[in-house]
């Protein structure tokens, strides 16, 4: 559905846009996305990435589901193959950026203070503190939160949502806005499944499908190096798809946008 050109206006809703008003006032139909300014900035960020052939991935999850541990293991595995960079988002501390830098990888920490999510402007400011030339993969680790980050486009190409097996397998049903936005869902800490008999990975996947989301579901443990190959292969495939898009002047918006779905056939 188009939020910008006015084609949302149908015989069914136009009375809302053009309702009669009192004398001296005038009603103006706008029909523009409320977050248009953020979306413009996100598009600008995406153009930065596309110009350099970078694939940008937004990692979202609850706090403590293993985003940084996943990054540490991923960066180690890809060390001799791809050049990565990381933007970290947290309310406080440089701790996560320091963990990434310890792997020899460029990292910039966004400290949001009290803000519960990253937005496109914060990411743009971070990009100005980074060297983007030669980067293949940029990971943006969002603030740990299953609610707010889902509503803000950062300029990324893909959303990856983590669900650790220490949480409930019904999280996709409880947080549909977040999980609907996922281009891939990772079930993390699967080494703990042996002692957590109340998390059913198949149920978690079924809840994701009930959101009409065709995203691949990968089961892994970053700490115990289980199932990492499928994730790394997916990353390589997505980078190849991004380079193929860039070569023909196309880009891709994440599933978070309503019309992002139209690009799914390119990468599915």
């Amino acid at each position, binding site marked *: *559905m188009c*939020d910008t050109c006015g084609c*949302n206006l149908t015989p069914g*809703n136009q009375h*809302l*846009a*053009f*309702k009669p*008003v009192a004398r*001296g*006032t*005038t*009603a*103006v*139909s*706008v*029909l*523009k*996305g*409320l*977050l*248009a*300014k*953020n979306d413009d900035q996100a598009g600008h960020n995406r153009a930065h990435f596309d110009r350099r052939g970078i694939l940008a991935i937004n990692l979202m999850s609850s706090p403590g589901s293993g985003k940084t541990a996943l990054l540490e293991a991923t960066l180690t595995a890809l060390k001799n193959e791809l050049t990565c960079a990381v933007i970290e988002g947290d309310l406080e501390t440089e701790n996560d950026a320091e963990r990434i830098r310890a792997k020899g990888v460029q990292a910039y920490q966004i400290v949001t203070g009290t*803000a*519960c*999510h990253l*937005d496109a402007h914060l990411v743009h400011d971070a990009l100005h503190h980074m060297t983007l030339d030669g980067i293949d993969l940029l990971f943006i680790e969002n603030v740990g939160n299953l*609610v*707010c980050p*889902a*509503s*803000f486009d950062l300029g990324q190409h893909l959303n990856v949502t983590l669900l650790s097996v220490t949480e409930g397998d019904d999280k*996709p*049903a*409880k947080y*549909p*806005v*977040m999980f*609907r936005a996922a281009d891939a869902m990772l079930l993390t800490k699967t080494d703990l499944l042996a002692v957590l008999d109340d998390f059913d990975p198949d149920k978690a996947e079924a*809840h994701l*499908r*009930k*959101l*009409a989301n*065709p995203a691949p579901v990968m089961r892994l443990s970053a700490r115990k190096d289980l199932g990492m190959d499928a994730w790394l292969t997916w990353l390589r495939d997505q980078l190849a798809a991004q380079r193929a898009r860039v070569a023909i002047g196309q880009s891709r918006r994440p599933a978070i946008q*309503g019309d992002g*779905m139209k690009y799914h056939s390119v990468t599915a």
Partner: protein
Amino acid sequence: MHELAVAQALVEQVDAVIGQHQASCATAIRVRIGPLAGVVPELLATAFPLAAAGSRMEHAALEFTHAPIQVRCQTCGAETEAAMNRLLCGACGDWHTRIISGDELLLESVELEMDTPHSLPLTPHPQNV
């Protein structure tokens, strides 16, 4: 919690509309929010007066249009209503559906109070002289 950020974006957009139409202020603002947009209308209504304080819309009424969730089935083609965490086809039950309504976050319309013309010179009323 992010509704304050959304309210600030709303104020910026409405302010731009006021400027474009050379109006003096906005008296009503209508927003269309679908349940899948991830924005709670009640929280946005709470955040709006904070974001709008001192602006040209601080006395504007914020109104909401509810956008029901509707999906179109890619398998059988039916268009049906769906629940937020169950976006399945209401006709055949398949999950291969696409949202056709319910994820909007739109500034739908704004009611503006136009500037009163200042072309007439301000002269004191005879009775007050």
